[in-house]
């Protein structure tokens, strides 16, 4: 069951990507595509890339080297798309808060720079495999991408929590799914890139991050397509006070 090429393994590799393509179709049908164009592109390109890698894995004529070459191309394209998607998330989160937009931009740029250095350092200190450089290189690139992605996402979540920002529901859903996915992927790729794992250990890690990705696709479905529950809020009772006096006093102090 928890082995490569088991039924569960096939399901977890194929189903989330089929669902992601279906989500892209629904976004296009409902006109949501225009609001989140990068996510729409990510859903299509990411799903197709994974399905191509899957096909290369199950087709007997595809050699391991061909598989890893396809994997590399997919990895680079997906990595670029993910960073573009992060840009879309940041733009949407900060767009509604003009007073914080500049600070947010400076913060994310700074954190991005630090994370890139940290990713490079982590890759530099990881054990190298000269025999299968194409494999260990892919693991290290994955680790670096997910480290930066994780760090940038946790920054936006902490920033939002600190300032009590309320991002739009779809943006929050995209960030949540991407965040959970990147956490699981970072952990699994870090173990894959740095640890001496047995074949069965690698299979369990594969299944773990495929299952996490499946959950994330379902999260995207929920946040992007399920309508927001509208709750009638009671009007905030305001206390009687002497704000006029305070305001006059404050203005006198400031000017």
């Amino acid at each position: 069951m928890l082995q490569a090429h088991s039924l569960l393994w096939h399901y977890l590799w194929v189903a989330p990507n089929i669902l992601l393509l279906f989500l892209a179709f629904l976004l296009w049908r409902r006109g949501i595509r225009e609001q989140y164009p990068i996510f729409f592109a990510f859903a299509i390109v990411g799903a197709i890339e994974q399905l191509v890698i899957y096909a290369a894995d199950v087709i007997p004529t595809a050699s391991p080297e061909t598989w890893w070459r396809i994997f590399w191309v997919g990895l680079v394209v997906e990595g670029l798309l993910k960073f573009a998607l992060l840009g879309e998330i940041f733009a949407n989160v900060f767009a509604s808060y003009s007073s914080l937009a500049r600070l947010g931009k400076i913060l994310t740029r700074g954190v991005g720079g630090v994370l890139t250095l940290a990713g490079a350092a982590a890759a530099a200190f990881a054990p190298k495999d000269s025999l299968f450089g194409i494999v260990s290189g892919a693991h290290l690139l994955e680790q670096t991408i997910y480290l930066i992605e994780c760090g940038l996402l946790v920054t936006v979540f902490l920033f939002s929590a600190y300032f009590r920002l309320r991002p739009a529901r779809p943006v929050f859903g995209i960030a949540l799914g991407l965040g959970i996915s990147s956490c699981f992927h970072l952990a699994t790729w870090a173990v894959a890139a740095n640890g001496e794992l047995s074949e069965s250990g690698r299979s369990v890690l594969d299944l773990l991050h495929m299952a996490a990705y499946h959950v994330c696709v379902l999260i995207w479905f929920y946040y992007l397509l399920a309508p927001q529950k509208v709750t009638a809020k009671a009007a905030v009772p305001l206390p009687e006070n002497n704000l006029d006096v305070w305001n006059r006093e404050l203005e006198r102090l400031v000017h």
Partner: protein
Amino acid sequence: MTIAIILVVAALVTLIVILTFTVSQGLQSSGRTGLATEIRPIDVAAFRNLVDPAEDDYLRRRLPASDFRLVRRERLRAMAAYVQLAKRNAAVLVRIAQNSTSAADAQTAEAARRLEDNAHLLQRNCTFAIMKIYIALAWPSSNLAAAPVLQGYAQLNNSAMLLGRLQNPAATMRI
């Protein structure tokens, strides 16, 4: 393997942060009444006295250097307490404003949006001011600029007053 352990722990911490934020968002959106009562009034006159550079100059001239540093540190601690309170009030006002941004009345919704923006600005200014205060605590002889906090607070007060008047013309909101 050490790097793997560090990265796994980092991923776990990130996951906890993300899930905690998700749960808190859910709790926030369920709404709460009586938020206005959480606002604690601030003695602006006392705060003004604390941030007044003329007061500091006067104390610097009148007191021996060691005594001045002692007094200055006490004043900075008091200043930090005021700024923390202003920041807390701003956070409450953010929540009040967020409850009103979807109001049916366009004027109230606009006032709520302005209040939220001003409250965020004040939160940001308070954050920087607190950092400056703690730096000044290490070097009590340095000058400290807390003007942006006062300015932000005045703007916030205007916005809160406008929203209060729109929601309840008979009463206004005190911060």
